């Protein structure tokens, strides 16, 4: 744990990416396998199931801090983070003489994995009293760094400005493997432990976990006003498809089994039995990338219909009939067990069409738009809303299937309004009738490792959704500032707006015009949210437009 605390400190005290990779690699090289696995898991955004709620930690802090409650509250407001406030107020002070008692010494030698598996996780099943006694004892016996970390681990995750991709880079450096191989191995189900670490860094590409999808390739936004002719050049170099308004998913068919993964790396095979059944007709060693869509006899249904299926683990026959779902594939990543990702898109696309030529209805191919030039495509795009799609996808004919969000080969050319996927940061109660509900939200976009507030929006959600969200907000408050609550920054929403302009009044340097919540993106995690650079790219387009 001490080594991990030192790593955390090193990551936290530098803004340089290469320094972060170096610190992480050095740590992983020296750490025991199980500790390394947990470090990778946590730094890549994984969380422990919650040992204590932030509100419990706050209660315990008020009870055990040697200061009056109001002073603790003032301090918490100044510090801005409960875990850190506790570390600053409760932990063994740095000026305390070294050595400590025996138990403290034992703590020091306990590794990250042991801390989590032997101390933190078993605590989940204990009574509140036991948890309070144990946790407050830790607070007093740990130094500030470890105290802070333990608090962060108990309440969820670490946020130390390290992306999955950065962790993959460090693992690649340590293992000598290709970065893409590592990133691939980090996908899907991952149970931290010594075995998982060994599997992660094992030489060769013999992969034990056959269920694993490939890292998704993500498109970058092209402003609605932007002219693809200027930006993308010759129309003939590009394939155009509809940009579907569903759930991005990979279907993995191997060893006679099927796995359906969302972009949020959630395994949802059981939720879409019609797709899973259809996949049984595919040959082994097939991986499709596409969009899950609610689709009835008239074609694609509104996203709201699909939403009725998203949360359901068990689907009734009636719902299956009312809201049938299909996977509309647009890429073939693996065929006959061979990774096709480095083949040009045109080749993958032809193979996909051949493969799904006679597939059941629940598996289809996203059609290409024939429009011969950019103006014709723009006309087609104007038809998007009527077709219940969000706009167009433009993909370079010769492009490989890349990893993550790499600008240049895949563009989403959405119909205005502009949209961004943003993370909820703060919530406050509405006015009047809605004064008892949290309906006003502040959203942020990613900026490097931080989240920068970009817009405030009143809910555009249904009443049910608002009530559900209200409960969630109350249970996931991390800090309070008067009526405003800071929440765990994990919920992603799609925000629509009419325009974007530079603004010196906002921290992001941008102001959105008429922002509104389109929907909650339960399929996305905070790391999938759009970045400040994405938002600025819209601006550049708007400026030129």
């Amino acid at each position, binding site marked *: 744990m001490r080594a991990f605390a030192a790593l955390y400190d090193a990551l*936290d*005290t*530098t*803004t*340089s990416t290469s320094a972060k990779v170096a610190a992480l690699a050095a740590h992983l090289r020296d750490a025991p396998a199980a500790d390394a696995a947990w470090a990778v898991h946590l730094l890549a955004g994984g969380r422990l199931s919650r040992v204590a709620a932030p509100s419990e930690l706050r209660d315990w802090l008020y009870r055990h*801090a040697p*200061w*009056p*409650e*109001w*002073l*603790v509250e*003032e*301090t918490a407001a*100044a*510090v*801005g*983070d409960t875990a*850190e*406030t506790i570390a*600053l*107020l409760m932990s063994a*002070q*740095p*000026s305390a003489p070294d050595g400590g008692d025996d138990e403290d010494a034992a703590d020091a030698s306990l590794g990250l994995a042991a801390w989590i598996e032997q101390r933190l996780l078993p605590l989940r099943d204990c009574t509140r009293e036991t948890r309070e006694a144990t946790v407050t004892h830790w607070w007093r016996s740990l130094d500030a760094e470890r105290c802070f970390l333990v608090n962060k681990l108990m309440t969820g995750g670490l946020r130390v400005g390290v992306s999955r991709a950065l962790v993959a880079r460090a693992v690649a450096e340590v293992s000598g493997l290709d970065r893409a191989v590592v990133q691939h191995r980090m996908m899907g189900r991952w149970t931290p432990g010594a075995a998982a670490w060994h599997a992660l860094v094992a030489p060769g590409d013999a992969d034990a976990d056959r269920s694993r999808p490939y890292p998704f390739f993500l498109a970058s936004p092209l402003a609605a006003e932007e002219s693809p002719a200027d930006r993308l050049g010759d129309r003939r170099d590009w394939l155009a498809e509809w940009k579907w308004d569903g759930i991005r998913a990979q279907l993995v068919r191997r060893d006679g089994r099927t796995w359906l993964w969302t972009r949020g790396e959630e395994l949802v095979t059981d939720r879409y039995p019609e797709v899973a059944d259809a996949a049984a007709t595919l040959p082994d060693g097939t991986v499709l990338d596409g969009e899950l869509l609610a689709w009835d006899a008239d074609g694609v249904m509104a996203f709201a219909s699909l939403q009725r299926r998203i949360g359901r683990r068990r689907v009734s026959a009636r719902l299956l009939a009312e809201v049938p779902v299909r996977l509309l594939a647009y890429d073939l990543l693996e065929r006959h067990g061979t990774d096709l990702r480095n083949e040009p898109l045109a080749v993958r696309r032809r193979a996909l069409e051949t493969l799904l030529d006679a597939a059941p209805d629940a598996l289809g191919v996203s059609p290409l738009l024939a429009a011969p030039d950019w103006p014709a495509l723009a006309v087609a795009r104007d038809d998007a809303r009527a077709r219940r799609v969000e706009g167009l996808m433009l993909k370079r004919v010769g492009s490989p299937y890349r990893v993550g969000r790499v600008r240049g080969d895949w563009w989403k050319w959405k119909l205005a309004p502009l949209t961004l996927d943003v993370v909820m940061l703060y919530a406050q109660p509405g006015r009047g009738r809605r004064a008892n509900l949290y309906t006003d939200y502040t959203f942020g976009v990613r900026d490097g490792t*931080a989240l920068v507030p970009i817009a405030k929006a009143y809910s555009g959600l249904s009443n049910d959704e608002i009530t559900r969200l209200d409960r969630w907000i109350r249970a996931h408050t991390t800090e309070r500032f008067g009526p405003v609550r800071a929440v765990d920054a994990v919920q992603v929403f799609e925000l629509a707006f009419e325009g974007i302009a530079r603004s010196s009044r906002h921290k992001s340097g941008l102001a959105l015009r008429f922002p509104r919540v389109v929907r909650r993106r339960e399929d996305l995690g905070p790391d999938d949210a759009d970045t400040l650079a994405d938002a600025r790219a819209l601006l550049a387009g708007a400026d030129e437009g």
Partner: protein
Amino acid sequence: MDARAALVRPTEHGLWCEAGGFHIDPCRPVDRALITHAHADHARPGSRHYLGAADGRALLRRRLGGDARVEGIGWGEHRRIGDVSVSFHPAGHVLGSAQVRIEHRGEVWVVSGDYKRDPDPTCRAFEPVRCDTFVTEATFALPAYVWPPARDVAADILGWWRANRDAGRPSVLFCYALGKAQRVLAELARLTDDAVYAHGAIVPLARLYRQAGVAMLPIESVDLRRRRAWDGELVIAPPGAAGTPWMRRFRGALTGFCSGWMRVRGNRRRRGYDRGFVLSDHADWPGLLATVRDTGAPRVLAMHGRDDALVRYLREQGLDAQSLATAFTGERPDATAPPG
């Protein structure tokens, strides 16, 4: 509080002692100014006559301009001014920083100015002075603010510099030009004798410290030196230099900031420095409480920063504490209301 009974009270010109006919650290030009120390928010030019601790006279003259009438007074030396007796006592904040003790018909007030209790090789240690009313600063008056030993911080700074040197990169450490920079140079001098480069604003102040007998690392002015590469060097610069064209010469530099604010992670992140070092010339929370105790003062007036928190806490401890800003206006601030 009865305004007539107050020996010192805030006015639009700053703290005013009517019985003595002088201001302390006035914010506008006055006839007679007593100055606690040479920081810009305490020593302002334009007054007719200045009195400060002799140790800090050279710094004051530099700050106030060559033609200012600046008189120095020895530590603890009594001086009759108007109807009161005045003496200066070390505050431990920067070179020559003083608390001002004022005695009037048996009643003693002490105005602390800025102070700290931690050891500092560049100035005389804070000396507690018994008094009836203690006017204290409260910049860091929250219990989260507890300073690590300065020697440990200096060792961290050295470790950071060495690591950056090994990586072939310059280290730029931002410190306030008066006080903090010299304290860092003095603390580092105990650990190394490598030379350091300094921004032009720091060099003349460091010279005055050296003339006062403070041992520090040798420094060279960045601006006088023509170098193409600064790799591996440590450069000390005032925070105002951050983000200016002056910084461009230090290609690939890593930046650090020395301040009490760096105790809080969020402050470190927001300021965008690579490293934050917790080093303050103000009293931390335990230092504030210990000092209030040491003065034995039954009445405390707090100013600057979190005076609200300090006042409310001291009141709950049974002291007659008020915020200086509101003590004379009759208005009852939230902070002194009973806890809810």
